[in-house]
């Protein structure tokens, strides 16, 4: 009996998972497959880019600075033993571009913007604002979901680049200003090591993929949350947990494809 129960439970989870993915797909399809409305859509999009992107800038920039500094300090202590501390530039820049930039930005974005999106949508649902749009003959997918999705997709790659730039500067501060590596050597070796296609484009590809996944999960969790306080808090937690896991798993996959 216990055996059958657990098999049933397993089956139910699988069905729920597939159903959830189906619902999420339908939601995104409904939001994106629309004739774009330039005049009415643009202000909505700009507002969301402000909320989702601009308001996440502080945490991204500050984290980037510290992560760059820590990276440089750790790198320096190891490299200096071999007398190769001048390679600090490429070490910091490549770590940030290839991995830490997109990944940490996505994790921060999930915590800062993703959870806010979920909570906002959950609240809009529980206060019947979404129903109210429906009854006013306005499609909530178009009015609410689409601008937020595009805003996430546009903001996150830009945030990642900012993270990397500030991180490199943090590395410069530690390596050159503090530890006394030669200024010219730091930049010239860095510049020689970083490739446009291999490093910068891959960084952007990763962060677009992460942006898609994190924003999608956040919007889905909010749009399909149980419309009460417990439901919203559960949905917010799920957003952060699932986005983070998805980002880390996808990062491994993408790294394997790009550099493997």
């Amino acid at each position, binding site marked *: 009996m216990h055996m059958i129960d657990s098999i049933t439970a397993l089956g139910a989870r699988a069905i729920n998972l597939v159903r959830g993915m189906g619902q999420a797909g339908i939601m995104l399809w409904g939001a994106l497959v629309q004739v774009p409305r330039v005049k009415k859509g643009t202000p909505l999009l700009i507002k969301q880019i402000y909320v989702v992107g601009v308001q996440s800038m502080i945490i991204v920039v500050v984290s980037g600075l510290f992560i760059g500094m820590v990276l440089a300090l750790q790198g320096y202590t190891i490299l200096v033993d071999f007398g190769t501390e001048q390679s600090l530039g490429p070490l910091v820049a490549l770590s940030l571009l290839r991995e830490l930039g997109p990944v940490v930005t996505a994790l921060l974005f999930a915590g800062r913007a993703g959870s806010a999106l979920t909570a906002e949508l959950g609240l809009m649902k529980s206060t019947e*604002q979404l129903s109210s749009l429906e009854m006013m*003959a306005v499609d909530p997918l178009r009015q609410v979901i689409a601008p937020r999705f595009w805003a996430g997709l546009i903001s996150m790659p830009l945030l990642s680049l900012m993270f990397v730039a500030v991180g490199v500067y943090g590395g410069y501060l530690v390596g050159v200003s503090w530890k006394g590596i030669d200024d010219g050597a730091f930049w010239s070796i860095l510049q020689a090591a970083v490739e446009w296609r291999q490093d910068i484009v891959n960084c952007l590809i990763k962060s677009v993929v992460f942006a898609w996944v994190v924003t999608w999960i956040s919007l889905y969790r909010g749009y399909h949350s149980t419309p009460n306080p417990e439901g919203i808090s559960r949905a917010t937690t799920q957003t952060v947990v699932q986005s983070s896991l998805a980002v880390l798993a996808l990062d491994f996959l993408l790294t394997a494809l790009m550099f493997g």
Partner: protein
Amino acid sequence: MQLSWDEREWNHSSRATLQKSDANFKIPVQDFQTDSDMSQEQTALVEVNNLRFSRGSRVIYDDISLKIPKGKVTAIMGPSGIGKTTLLKLIGGQLTPDKGEVLFDGQNIHKLSRNALFEARKRMSMLFQSGALFTDMNVFDNVAFALREHSELPEAIIRRIVLMKLQAVGLRGAAQLMPSELSGGMQRRAALARAIALEPEMVLYDEPFTGQDPISMGVLVKLIKDLSDALSLTSVVVSHDVSEVLSIADYVYVIAEQRIIAHGTPQQLRQSDNPQLRQFIDGEPDGPVPFHFPADAYKEELLGAHD
């Protein structure tokens, strides 16, 4: 007036057994419609025919039919938790029934394409229980929202319309406030202004009086009545506030136990001797609608062995 109600059937002990033993047991519907009512029957804007709706395994409505006449205030009353809001959502096409149909001006709402449904929804509007104002816009923009979405009117005209609607609900002075700065009653009034912004033919009111202090309640009662008279709106009021509803409704349907247990004019309902209806109107704690949630026998649960 024919009363087919048999009071003896509703004595407490037999109630449960009756329902169990006879699956087809139907609560007799009191039909108050007299011949004179029939002759002057108005054209119905909304017709609900043999509607059945369930959530999971729980049946919310089992075969209900009702008519909402044009230009009148129709009230739908019933205890909490029986899905009165659900009925409004079924009428608005946000939920789909298992069986039966909802006709809005002759069109089956649930058979319409999305575009046609949106066109139909432009002719109706709904006042949500919470007001459902958009929290990121001020009162003015909330009221202007539907106008900006659905009309090509220039901003100067939209401004005048919005101010007129706000004046009608007494909130012109609050146009620049955010919804969070309004009291509950004011939020509902602002939402009412938004609901009538596009001059709909029908307004669905979801529990408009719940949680209001006596003054806001009086204001809302007056507004609903005045709006429906002045604009000859068709109003559907879903509520369990008996005295307020009976004071403004032209016709009342009472729902309980998944079906309509009585309908008639407020006058007729007040005089009814249907015990279930009386309990509801007089607010008795126990009666045909039992005080206790269904449970096993009390004694056995207290004294019986657990396993």
